[in-house]
Each structure stands twice: as structure tokens, then as C-alpha cells.
């Protein structure tokens, strides 16, 4: 026992190194252990408040662009209002209809930290638990997708952007609804990869890819990007293409978080289906 203690004391440097390295690697590879801990709340809160100060300053430099985007969005919304449509029959817009039920609402949030130059990029937003943000909610800007919420504290949340090795978006061709997957393989933040294009689909440069709505994170029909380059892979089962993202990830300042009002219902349905299967 004495010898063991002596040994430990003499070699403490190696043991301390091993202990700290193991802690670091556990934090790195076991995300749930960290994300659910109280530590996440503290560190997200501290980092959030400092990044918030920094973004409060830098936000002035992007006001012109933010204004333009807002004006465009406003114009878009105005043109969708009932008043914007020609009414042949005044009753046309007033009948009650149980077919329509609110499914998605949106919370506006400010981006207080963003990166596009890493292999795995995240954004921090200034909304959290208190504002009703939950994990796996989608984040968009206008009608273009940004990413999904992966970690939350009381007032802030981290969003995994599309520019991440773990990000995999289910999309489809707007012209014929063929499903594909969109990933990002590093490098330029302007371009991503379209995987698993079925052989029979004829692809052309400029084809629009939109979200498929299969994943519960994004509603159907949000803009992902347009096809840039197209490669035939005769020896494989699928073709590949590169996509020009519709979103400018490097200039995000205000984004919207999607709240799916029917999420619980969908989750319940899925879990009950799974338990029936067993």
C-alpha cells in the first residue's frame, strides 16, 4: 500500500495527464453526458453573455443588410395577405374551415456567434428554454434553411449549422420530388454535396433542391440551394452533385426558430408504432 502511494506520488504527472485527457475525450465523444449536465447551463450561460456583448457591438455593422432582408420579407408577407388578392366573391375568404390548423410558429432570434471556417460549425442564438426553444428544432432565415438546435440553456441555444459533418438534410428536387440527401464535406461554405441521386433522375445545372419534410425538423418546401456541378458515377448505384447553398452562412444576423405545434403528436405516434411493432 505504501509502495503504491509512493508510486502514485512519483508518477503523478502521468496519472494527472491521463485523467484530464480522459475527461476531455469523454466530453468530446459522449455528447449526452455533457449536454444534459448542469455544466452545460453554466458554460453556455457564461459564453453566451460574453458573445452577446460582442455581437451587440458588431451588429451595427450589418444593419444595412439586415434592413434590406427585413424589407424583402415584409414585402413578401404583404403580398401573401388576404387583402392582396383580388376578391370576386366577398365570402370567399371568410368561411370557417377545419382543414386548416396552425402547425408551425416561428421565433425570431439573434445570432450572437457564428462560424463557417471550421469543419464543424455552430451558431449561438440569444433565445433558450425560457423562450420555448427545444432540442432538434429547425432554424431558418426567410425561406432558406440554416440548421437545427442541438444544445440549450436558459437564455441561449447552440445551433448545428448545415456546415457540419453530423448534419444530413433530407431534400428533394423541386421539379420531380425525387429524394436526395445533402451533406457538407468541408472547404467552402458556399457549396455542399448532394448524395444518393437515383440513376434515372435527369439533373441539370440550376435545378432547385428544397426540403422534403420527411425529417420533422424542417417543414416541406424550404429552399436548400441549386445544383452546381453534376457527376455521373456509372460504376455506383447513385449519382452525385454539388449544390450551391441558397443561404449565405457567413452573414447570418437574425434567424427564425421553427416551433412545430404538432411535434408531440408526431412523436407519440412514432413511439406507439414502435411499441406495437415489438
Amino acid at each position, binding site marked *: 500500500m505504501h509502495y503504491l502511494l509512493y508510486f502514485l506520488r512519483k508518477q*503523478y*504527472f502521468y496519472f*494527472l*495527464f491521463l485523467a*484530464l*485527457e480522459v*475527461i*476531455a*475525450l*469523454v*466530453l*468530446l*465523444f459522449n*455528447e449526452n453526458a*455533457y449536454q444534459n449536465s448542469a455544466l452545460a447551463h453554466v*458554460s*453556455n450561460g*457564461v*459564453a453566451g453573455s*460574453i*458573445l452577446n456583448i*460582442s455581437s451587440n457591438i458588431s451588429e451595427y455593422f450589418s444593419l444595412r443588410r439586415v434592413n434590406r432582408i427585413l424589407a424583402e420579407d415584409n414585402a413578401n408577407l404583404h403580398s401573401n395577405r388576404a387583402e392582396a388578392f383580388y376578391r370576386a366573391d366577398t365570402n370567399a375568404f371568410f368561411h370557417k374551415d377545419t382543414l386548416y390548423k396552425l402547425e408551425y410558429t416561428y421565433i425570431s432570434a439573434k445570432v450572437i*456567434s457564428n*462560424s*463557417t*471556417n*471550421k*469543419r*464543424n460549425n*455552430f451558431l*449561438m442564438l440569444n433565445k433558450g428554454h425560457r423562450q420555448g426553444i427545444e432540442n432538434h428544432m429547425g432554424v431558418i432565415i426567410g425561406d432558406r434553411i440554416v440548421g437545427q438546435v*442541438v*444544445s440549450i440553456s436558459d437564455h441561449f441555444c*447552440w445551433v448545428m449549422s448545415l456546415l457540419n*459533418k453530423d448534419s444530413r438534410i433530407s431534400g428533394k428536387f423541386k421539379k420531380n420530388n425525387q429524394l436526395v440527401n445533402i451533406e457538407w*464535406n*468541408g*472547404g*467552402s*461554405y458556399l457549396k455542399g454535396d448532394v448524395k444518393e441521386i437515383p440513376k434515372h433522375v435527369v439533373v441539370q445545372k440550376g435545378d432547385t433542391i428544397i426540403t422534403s419534410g420527411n425529417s420533422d425538423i424542417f417543414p416541406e418546401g424550404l429552399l436548400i440551394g441549386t445544383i452546381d456541378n453534376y457527376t455521373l458515377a456509372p460504376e455506383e448505384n447513385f449519382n452525385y452533385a454539388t449544390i450551391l447553398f441558397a443561404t449565405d452562412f*457567413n452573414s447570418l444576423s437574425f434567424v427564425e426558430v421553427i416551433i412545430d405545434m404538432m411535434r408531440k403528436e408526431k412523436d407519440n405516434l412514432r413511439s406507439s408504432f414502435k411499441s406495437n411493432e415489438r
Partner: protein
Amino acid sequence: MSIIFLRNVLRFAFLVLFQVLILNNIQFSGYINPYFYIYFILVLPFETPRWLLLISAFLLGFFLDAFTNTLGLNTAACVLIAFLRPFVIRAISTGTEFMTGHSPSIRNQGLKWFAYYSIILVMVHHLTLFYLEIFRFTEFFQTLLRVLLSSAFTILLVFIAEYLSFSGKK
């Protein structure tokens, strides 16, 4: 002693903020991400207790990770180079360079010594960091290119910082 301690705490805070607020926002085609904050580990005094070396590197990495939502990533790389630091110093020194109360620097140890020292530690840090971040072998050479370019940039910043403090103390 307390002045040295205070100076290092201030350097710690400055480098963390400089890294997360300025360097992390630098955009060079997605290949160059300088991680200058490890300058803190490079210039800790020679007689820093080894446990303190490891603990301060752990805290440094942890703060960095909290700001970028990459928990454990910078921490692992920092702890590794803090662990290797004494061995690297022993390996490249001939035994005459050390004086108590000194930190590794170009002025005290000479350009060649400091170049070896900083290049080895920066490369080890960047290799660990970038390969842990990607953690797959399909992008091996792409990642290697990022490691080399980013290391070169970080080392450049380290030398600029050295010469700034060099001229400041004269």
C-alpha cells in the same frame, strides 16, 4: 511571484477573448484557422509546477470549447501539449539555457531554440485538434493541408507576439 501569476492570468483572459472574438472569425477559404491562444502554454515560466501546467491547459481548452460548442476538443489538444512540453524542452535543450524566473522566449533561448520548441508544440496541437474534430480518414489529406496551413499561421502569430514583447521590454 504574484506578479508573474497575475501576468499569466491576464494573458490567459486576453488570449481566450482574442481567440474567440477575433481569430475565430477570420475567414480564409476554410483552410486556415489559427489557434494562437496556445501561446499561453508556450510561454508559461520554466519552473511552473507540472500539475499546474496540466490544470491550466485544461482550463484554457475548456474555456475555448465553451465558446465554440466543441466540448473536449481544444481541451484534449491543450492537455496533450502541456504534457509534452517538459519533454520537448528537455529534448531540445543542451542544459545551459535555463535561468530561474524565466519563460521560454526568443530573447532568453535564442531564435533557433524557440523555433524548434514552438513549431513542435504547435504542430502537435493542430494535428490533434483537426484530426479529433473530423475523426474520419476519408478527408485525410484535406485535413493535413488545413493542419499545415493553420500551423504556419499560428507560428507566424507566435513570432510576431515574441518580437512585440521583445521590443517592448528593451
